[in-house]
Every structure is written in C-alpha cells, then in structure tokens.
C-alpha cells in the first residue's frame, strides 16, 4: 500500500492546496477526548494529525506542551494505550497519523517492536525532535523495513545541513520556524527564502513549517514558503482551556485556519 503521507501530498498538489498538519498530546485531558479531537480535526480540514506521546522531560517544548505532557502523565498515559487509540481511530479515518515523541520512548520500548507496532496499527510516520540527522541509524533500518516514515527536522541554524538532510528525507521535511522551543509567537525573524533555497535545487519531498504558528493568517504566510504548515501549541492552548469540552472550539479553530489556508 502506498504511504498515506505521500498520497496526501500528491492529492493536495493536484488540488493546488497546502497541507494543514495539526498536533495534540495524547491523553490530554484523557484518551477518549484525544480520539474525538483527532476525528474532529480531520473533519474540519486537517490533512495530517500528529499525536504527541507525553514524555517526562520534553526538552524541545515550550510551556504549553510541557503542561499538556504533565496533564497526560498524571493518569499514566502510555505508549501501548496510544497504539490502541490509533487502532480505534483507523475504524474511522484513512488520513495520515503520525506520532511525535522523544527518542527514549522509542528506544526503551524496543525500536524494532515499536516500528512493527506502528505498522500494525497503521501509524504512517514518527517525528523525533531529539534525534538529529547524525543519529538517524537509531531508527533507520526499522523505519525502512516497515515503511513507517521517520520525519527529519530542519532548523534556522541548519544552513549547509539543509541539503544533506533533504537528500535522505521521506514523507515531508519538518521546518522549524524559529530558534527556541515550541509555543505560539507573534513574529518570525527567519529568512525562509534563504533557509529553504537548497530545497528548490532538487527533487525533494514536501516541506512544512512549524513552531509558533497560532492563527490562519500566520499559517497562510508560512505555507506560501513551502507545502504546508504545522500547528501545535495554539491547539493545545484550547485543550488546556476547555479540557473534555474542547472538541467544538478546536474544530472551529481548525476550520478558521483551513479557510485562511485555502483563500
């Protein structure tokens, strides 16, 4: 079967649309709400959903996602429960689902077992923010064997590394918008034309910009530089505010971003 991420970007390209990738933390405030939120986000216009696996020490996250991790870990959300969650979601959606997680979670679970389980429950890719390109051998063999994509990140500091990383990227390339950690921002100082220039020189996989995007207007602006945008903290802020009642407000937010993105 064709990887859902690749199929998704091909469809979007054919329609002349940009990808909307959204993030929530699994088990925040509980797994039943996470399940509803994923389906609601797809329903209101998300193309790809990243499910965050909560970690005790998320060093790449700002306060919003740190707090979401803690809320989730308070009731001991674990990786097996998240596999079951995705398995249930697959009864209702065929859209790409990714896990966003720290390397220790993969490693401790057993990298081979982890990728096999991802394949079994039909997780399409994983994003591991504390695994830089140089350490990709931790997962590469299993990622390739199972077809579960390992999504690489590029940061404003990557410069001459961009091409090297793009050469080996599959699925999409995660472009980190700014220095620092996740969290909403008012402005972006990165020169995206310069940062992303190497990507125009070859036939590389699609690229999406994330970190700090908080509304439709910013999403539109960012997506103009590439193939889509990723929104996390802005959604998690809504979940933090409304808890189990966040399905409707999150849906409204996603709809507003989708509209702006398609305008």
């Amino acid at each position: 079967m064709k990887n859902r991420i690749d199929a998704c970007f091909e469809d979007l390209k054919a329609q002349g649309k940009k990808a909307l990738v959204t993030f929530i933390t699994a088990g925040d405030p509980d797994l039943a709400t996470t399940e509803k939120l994923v389906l609601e986000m797809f329903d209101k216009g998300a193309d790809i959903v990243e499910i965050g696996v909560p970690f005790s020490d998320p060093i790449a996250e700002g306060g919003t996602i740190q707090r979401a991790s803690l809320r989730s870990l308070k009731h001991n959300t674990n990786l097996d429960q998240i596999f079951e969650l995705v398995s249930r979601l697959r009864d209702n959606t065929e859209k790409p689902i990714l896990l966003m997680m720290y390397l220790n979670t993969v490693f401790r679970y057993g990298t081979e077992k982890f990728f096999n389980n991802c394949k079994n429950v039909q997780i399409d890719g994983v994003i591991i923010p504390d695994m830089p390109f140089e350490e990709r051998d931790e997962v590469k063999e299993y990622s390739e064997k199972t077809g579960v994509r390992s999504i690489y990140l590029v940061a404003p500091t990557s410069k001459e590394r961009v091409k090297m990383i793009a050469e080996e990227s599959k699925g999409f390339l995660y472009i980190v918008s700014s220095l620092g950690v996740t969290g909403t921002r008012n402005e972006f100082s990165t020169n995206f034309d310069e940062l992303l220039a190497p990507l125009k020189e070859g036939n590389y996989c699609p690229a999406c910009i994330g970190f700090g995007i908080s509304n439709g207007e910013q999403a539109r602006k960012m997506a103009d530089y590439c193939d889509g945008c990723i929104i996390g903290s802005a959604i998690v802020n809504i979940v933090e505010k409304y808890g189990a009642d966040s399905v409707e407000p999150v849906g409204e937010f996603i709809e507003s971003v989708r509209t702006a993105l398609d305008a």
Partner: protein
Amino acid sequence: MEKIGRFGDFGGQYIPETVMTAVHELEAAYDKYKDDPEFNRELRELYRDYANRPSMLYYAEKMTKDLGGAKVYIKREDLNHTGAHKINNVLGQLLLAKKMGKKRIIAETGAGQHGVATATVCALMGLECEVYMGSTDMERQSLNVYRMNLLGAKVTGVDSGTATLKDAINEAFRDWCSNIDTTFYCIGSVMGPHPYPTMVRDFQKIISEEIKAQMLEKEGRLPDAVVACVGGGSNAMGAFYDFIGDKGVRLIGAEAAGRGVDTPEHAATIAKGDLGIFHGMKSLFLQNEYGQIDEVYSISAGLDYPGIGPEHAYLHSIGRADYFSITDEEAVQAFEYLSKTEGVIPAIESAHAVAAAMKVIPQMSKDQIVVINLSGRGDKDVYSIARYRGVELDEK
C-alpha cells in the same frame, strides 16, 4: 571504527537539530584549542594562581590507624577556590568560550556548586551569567543562590517537572535553543552530547595527573585504589582518568542510594538504571518501563541526578571501575567520621566516597594505599546534616 564521541555503546549527540550547528562549532573549537600551547598555558596559570592548584594530597594518619587496613590519602579538591572540583571544568570551558567570542554563559546547577563556580569565573572574565536551578533546590540551597547573586549572576528558578537538577538542565537546553548565536552552555558534569563528556573529563583529569605525581613523590608508587563519588561523574572521571591504563589501580565510584536501592527513593543509576537516551547521550538512566525518567532522591543535592556520564557507564560495562551504592545514613556517618577523625568537614557528596572507602580499607593490607577524592567541602551541608540528626539550628 568507533564513532566519534562514543565510549563503547555509550555517548553520542542526541539533541534537537537547532543545537547541532552550535555543538559542531564547540567541537571544532575544542579540537583546535585542546592541544594549543597558549590555551594550555593560560589554563595552567588560572589553575595555579586563581584556583589554588595543585590541590594537596594529604596522608590521613588517624583514619589509617583507626581503620587498621590500607594507608589512606585524601585528595583535597575541597581546598580549591569555591570549595570544590567544579572550578577546574568551569575555568576550562569559559576560557574556551572567550576564545569563541561568546559573551553570555548559561549553566545548570543542583546543589549550587557548579552554579557558584560558573558565576565566579564569569565575574573573573567579565561574562554575562545566567544559572538555571530547580526551585526545590533553590529552597534547599538558599545560601548558594545568594552567593551567585553576589557574584553578579542571574539565578532563574525552574518549576517544571520535579523542579530539581534534571529540570534545570532541560531549561538550560531550551535557553540554548533560543539563544544559540550568543550563548555558551557550560555543562557542569561529564554528561550531555559530545563533546561535553570528553571535554569536561579533560578539564578534570588534572586531578588524577596530580594524584599520580604526588603519590610517586610521597610513596614512590601508584595507589591500589582511587575512590570518588558519582552523580553525573565529573570528579570521579577526573580522579580516575590517568589511572585507567594502570590495571593495578582499582577504581571505585560511590553513587547515592538515598533511603536504599530497594526503595523508590535513591539515585543509584549504575545499580538500578537501564540503557536509555536522554540529555543528549546514550547511557544508563533511572526510568520506568515506558522510558519516563524517574524522580530520584538523595540527601545530597549534587548526586540526585537520574543518569550518569557515558564514560562511567562504559567503565562499568567493561568491568574497569566498580560502583558502590551508599545510603544517606552511611554518608552522614562518614561525614561525621571524617570531621571528627581528621578535622575535615567533607561535602555530603564527597562523604559518599569516604563511606565507600571505609568499606574497602579495612579489608586491605597495611602496605596498600587508597586515595579518596574529596571533591568538595561541607560548609554548605551543615544545615541539612543537622536536620537529618533532628537538631534545630535557628540562626538561618
């Protein structure tokens, strides 16, 4: 061929992409300066004139007689400026930071010793300094917080997670991700991504080089064992390193067993940890079955870290070093013993090493020699020892 920055399976560079360029820049700078005669001349001068090196190697005669076994020598890192071995590493890293043109220094601290050393050298070198410290530790070590303020550093409390050392490290990493161009991250132990474990070890290895020279001068031979406490493991790596090739020298690390390794309240990473990847390195960590990092505990704020430097994990894996687990009670007893027997009040961290040494010394013969690395002095711990013994001190 072994990969760069690896000790067997351990080590590596597991950090976000944002920091990779800075880590490579640091690696290149360190490679350039580590054998540079001018850099080393400056560093030796700072060690001698500012930090008070070489630190004394002292024959503990009363302790030797009392224990009735091997001859005991104490390496007095507690007599260094700022009262601990931490200054050795900070002088090295900040001299490097200056060469790299970095103006802003960040550091994490647990007990406050590394924070104080960093604030001290920043004052000396005219660098801006921000120290991250768990808010729980700030309460436990308010004296060191004020000391850092006196030295002109900004101390930023960290409330996330368990509000202790590991969370301070998380926050320092986040700061580094945000201010990568201007900022140098001065890590306090032989941990983190390559090149830190190697670089910090190199700045601390002067301890074992001095022990070796002093021992040859006093006894005309090498010691039979060197004992040091291990949290992240920088004083122990410093005390061990020059002896690794000398197979006749037994290397003993003392880690914190808190209320006992069979209780949930300890920080005994070698005894109870599992292989994992965290804080930039592959090493042993105290963690649950899903890889969530454990809360750890020790009476010593300098040893309650859930991981250990990768080179220690390696030395353990090949059987070159042994690691003892020392409980709070054993450490406090050793703290009191050394104070009364030798007139030296050790840091509670170093008291773990004293306790481990006291287990092996009586089993050894009188013609053998043990060196205890006394990594720091104990003034900072007097309140917590009093509290442990149920004594109320009201002059706080």
